[in-house]
């Protein structure tokens, strides 16, 4: 997109096998996430958003590919880096932005903010911010699916930084022991905050742990949404059909700092450029152009429409009022 000549990697099998419609859909959805995040950045800078804001830029192919591997009723359980999943699941962009603004029109009415996106009907089951503590919950959703024999699969995302913590271990132990229909996906973006993997994990390959949990595993560098879709699908099917959990490690990269307060100085420009070069969203864009002859202009038009959508979402979010003061007393207890 910057017009510079770069040493671009070849298009992947996944991209080649995809139809133009599939590519167009995936590209659009990834770009929607990216533009949403960019708007969030701007809003944060302008003081419209407060607290922590963790962007998904660079990892979009995962949320999109996952969405394509899921069935109606399946569940996503994610960390605080959750905007991408919400948008991929079809959550309303205005509601998402309004949540960041802490407004009544927010996805959870403004009480959660960036880290707690939930939209039950869309299969978006959170948005958790205590590292690892959502892993047992995801196992619990899967337990319920098995208990109720409702065929629902839970896909639980965690960061590379969440692998060492106890609750992750316990959730995986129970899933393996009881054969729960859940897929654990580690989004290994190489860093937990400012700390590279080598300083947080004793071994590089996270899926080495799968054996101890009696789980199947898979591990790959994310290149495009279709690869994610296809390889996740294997695990999702295993969960649904055999009631067996899987541990998947996705090697990926975030282009921004950990959160808005992190300039990300611990990374080199060369490293960043390397990953930008094979940004799965850009690869998808290239596939549309190179394999299907879609014009630069046509893609610009898509982008403009998305920018428009996201600007409208931002404006609508901003027009949403703050929650009424009494709202804070709501939902502390369920009143029957």
């Amino acid at each position, binding site marked *: 997109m910057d017009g510079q000549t770069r040493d671009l990697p070849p298009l992947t099998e996944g991209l080649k096998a995809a139809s133009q419609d599939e590519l167009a859909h995936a590209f659009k959805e990834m770009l929607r996430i990216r533009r949403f995040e960019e708007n969030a950045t701007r809003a944060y800078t302008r003081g419209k958003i407060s607290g922590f804001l963790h962007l998904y830029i660079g990892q979009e192919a995962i949320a999109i590919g996952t969405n394509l591997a899921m069935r109606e009723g399946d569940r996503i359980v994610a960390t605080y880096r959750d905007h991408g999943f919400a948008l991929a699941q079809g959550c309303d962009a205005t509601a998402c932005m309004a949540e960041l603004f802490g407004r009544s029109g927010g996805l959870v009415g403004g009480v959660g903010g960036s880290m*707690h996106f*939930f939209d039950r009907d869309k299969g978006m*089951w959170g948005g958790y911010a205590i590292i690892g503590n*959502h892993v047992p919950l995801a196992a*619990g959703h899967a337990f319920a699916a098995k208990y109720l024999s409702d065929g629902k699969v839970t896909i639980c995302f965690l960061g590379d930084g969440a692998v060492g913590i106890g609750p992750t271990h316990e959730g995986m132990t*129970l899933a393996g022991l009881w054969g729960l229909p859940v897929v654990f996906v580690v989004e290994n973006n190489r860093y937990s905050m400012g700390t590279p993997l080598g300083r947080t994990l004793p071994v590089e390959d996270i899926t080495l742990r799968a054996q101890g949990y009696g789980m199947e595993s898979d591990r790959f560098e994310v290149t495009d949404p279709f690869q994610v879709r296809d390889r996740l699908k294997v695990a999702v099917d295993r969960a649904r059909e055999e009631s067996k959990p899987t541990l998947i490690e996705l090697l990926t990269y975030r282009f921004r700092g950990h959160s808005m307060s992190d300039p990300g100085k611990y990374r080199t420009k060369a490293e960043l450029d390397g990953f930008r070069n094979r940004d799965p969203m850009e690869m998808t864009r290239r596939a549309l152009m190179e394999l299907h002859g879609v014009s630069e202009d046509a893609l610009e038009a898509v982008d403009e429409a998305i920018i428009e959508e996201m600007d409208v979402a931002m404006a609508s979010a901003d027009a949403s009022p703050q929650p009424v003061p009494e709202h804070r007393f709501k939902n502390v207890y369920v009143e029957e």
Partner: protein
Amino acid sequence: MAVLQIREAIRDAMREEMLRDDRVFLMGEEVGHYEGAYKCSQGLLKEFGEKRVIDTPITETGFAGVGIGAAMCGLRPIIEFMTFNFSAVAFDQIINNAAKIHHMTGGQFHAPMVFRGPNAAAHMLGSTHSQAFDTFYAHIPGLKVVSVATPKDAKGLLKAAIRDPNPVIFFESEVQYGVKGEVPEDEYLIELGVADTKREGADVTLLCWGQSVAIALAAAELAQEKGLDVEVIDLRSLRPLDEQTIFDSVRKTNRAVVVEHGWPYGGVGSHLIARIQEECFDALDAPVLKVCYEDLPMSYAENLEHLTIPQPSQVLEALEEVSYRG
């Protein structure tokens, strides 16, 4: 009326609720094949099978979380902690996920479930196995907290807790599982948040719950001999708290004492005292006193443990002190 032990009352409550509602299940260490470390689930595995009576590995955070996750899907888990002392390793799950999920999701999810098990000191189990978790959980908005002292209360409150749409912490006691009492044959529920006046009296209000109820009643007997007529209120529910019953009694007696199985600093008792002095200031003829654990890790040695835990004689002294006697 049948005469049951508390452990049987608890078992019956779980059994009846499991018969009534397919979504109710029991999960915890040794709850199935072993029938409970304290035999509170005797016969349940046999009756309901492994699907609904689930032995877990030692993973309190894991199975507490599984319970919460399952509750979010509409199931009604009963999570047994072998003792609440072990809930320390599941603390985050309880205070962050169970207590907050309803609020944090803007009401989209909730966690209708019970965490139950024995709490506080038993007998010579040492410092890590003798702690009262009342304060830790009563402190947290989003949780309900119940503590029982009789078979009848145990059954009625546990059934209500299982049906409650909120996460309920349900405190029992190792040393009370064998306590017997009459339990109605017909089905009944006891509403959460309603204290029970276990003994009426005109001179001093004595507040207690869980294990401290027996101490309070014994102290009231001792006081009666000294001519002090003590009103013993079993709070039964710590959150929500039946403040009205407490304040009404204090306004009648003008004096109050709290007996607590728990440490002095910032405990439930401190809360009761703070609330009483705030709401009944003019009615109080004496400061409200508290008799509770000494501010110490529990010792194993029998004599030291005995000294660390509140005894009826100490409660009697406090009753006399607030009455300016003795």
